[in-house]
């Protein structure tokens, strides 16, 4: 049962009829993996830790750079040069010592992703490149693992939740990654610092709802956000029979690295 301190810490959750003591226990028993400890990963990790998600995995091989701090709010100025997963872990356990943080200081690839996601209830894509986004989609669909997709650029963001077998996946909309360097990355095109806060917080909300088994997940619709116009739009989606991973005749039957989707900076980092 809960300690006195936990009852106090989670009182604003426990008072919600959709959460209660039972829901809070579900969060504490929950395991969520965040891939990417950057713009999207920062608010996701902070909010999931604060909410008391009991086991949080966080994967990223990068180190904190001064240019990250304009938006990656989990990293502070003295963290520059430190591994992002280590910097993130320190803040998460400082917010909430109930949380067990597992760090993976590595890039996800076809070789390791299956083993990394296996132990988690829900996966969140907070990565910054198409190779990783397609890999996460494929690995989660093939493993039947629900996950949240998120993407941001400049002043725009999009997110959707995928429940494999029950809802359309990322490849239902985008069957293959764009050619490398066809679509600019945040480092090339810029990103307004608050944008990942909006999209990441929605992704964290989906993880909490999934663990709580409450409400309606963001499945079967792509939510798009324009910060400049301050508009949200929802595009209804259906499963695509031609989807290469979850369609009627899938051509992707195991996780593969989309080497053509790696951009130059990814290759330098690997």
């Amino acid at each position, binding site marked *: 049962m809960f300690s006195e301190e936990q009852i106090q810490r989670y009182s604003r959750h426990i008072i919600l009829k959709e959460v209660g003591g039972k829901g809070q226990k579900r969060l504490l028993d929950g395991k969520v993996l965040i891939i990417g400890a950057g713009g*999207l990963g920062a608010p996701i990790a902070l909010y999931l830790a604060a909410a008391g998600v009991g086991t949080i995995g966080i994967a990223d091989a990068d180190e904190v750079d001064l240019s990250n701090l304009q938006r990656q709010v989990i990293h502070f100025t003295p963290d520059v040069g430190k591994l992002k997963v280590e910097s993130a872990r320190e803040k998460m356990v400082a917010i909430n010592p109930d949380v067990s943080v597992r760090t993976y200081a590595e890039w996800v690839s076809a070789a390791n992703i299956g083993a990394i996601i296996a132990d988690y209830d829900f996966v969140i894509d907070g990565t910054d490149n198409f190779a990783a986004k397609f890999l996460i989609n494929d690995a989660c669909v093939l493993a039947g693992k629900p996950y949240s997709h998120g993407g941001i650029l400049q002043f725009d963001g999009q997110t959707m939740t995928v429940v494999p077998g029950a809802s359309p996946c990322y490849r*239902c909309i985008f069957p293959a*990654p*764009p050619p490398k360097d066809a*679509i600019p990355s945040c480092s090339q095109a810029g990103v307004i610092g608050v944008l990942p806060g909006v999209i990441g917080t929605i992704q964290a909300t989906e993880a909490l709802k999934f663990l709580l088994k409450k409400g309606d997940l963001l499945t079967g619709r792509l939510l798009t956000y324009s910060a400049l116009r301050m508009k949200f739009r929802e*595009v209804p*989606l*259906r499963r*695509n029979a031609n989807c290469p991973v979850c369609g009627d005749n899938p051509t992707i039957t195991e996780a593969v690295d989309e080497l053509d989707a790696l951009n130059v900076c990814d290759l330098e980092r690997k």
Partner: protein
Amino acid sequence: MDLTVNGKPATIDGKEAVNVTTLLVELKVPQAEYVTVELNGEILLRGDFDTTQVREGDGVEFLYFMGGGN
């Protein structure tokens, strides 16, 4: 003909139907070579753009890759 494009009304003058390739040109869709097109709720195969007709009253969504996160 009148269409709904990305949730907003749009008009293509003087035509009753156009294929998707032409529609992308008529509407000056940015990054047309990478856009995903959803017609009345169905995602179209790129190879079907020339043969798929868009008609009066149809709903079209253009969906874009967004690869950032960091």
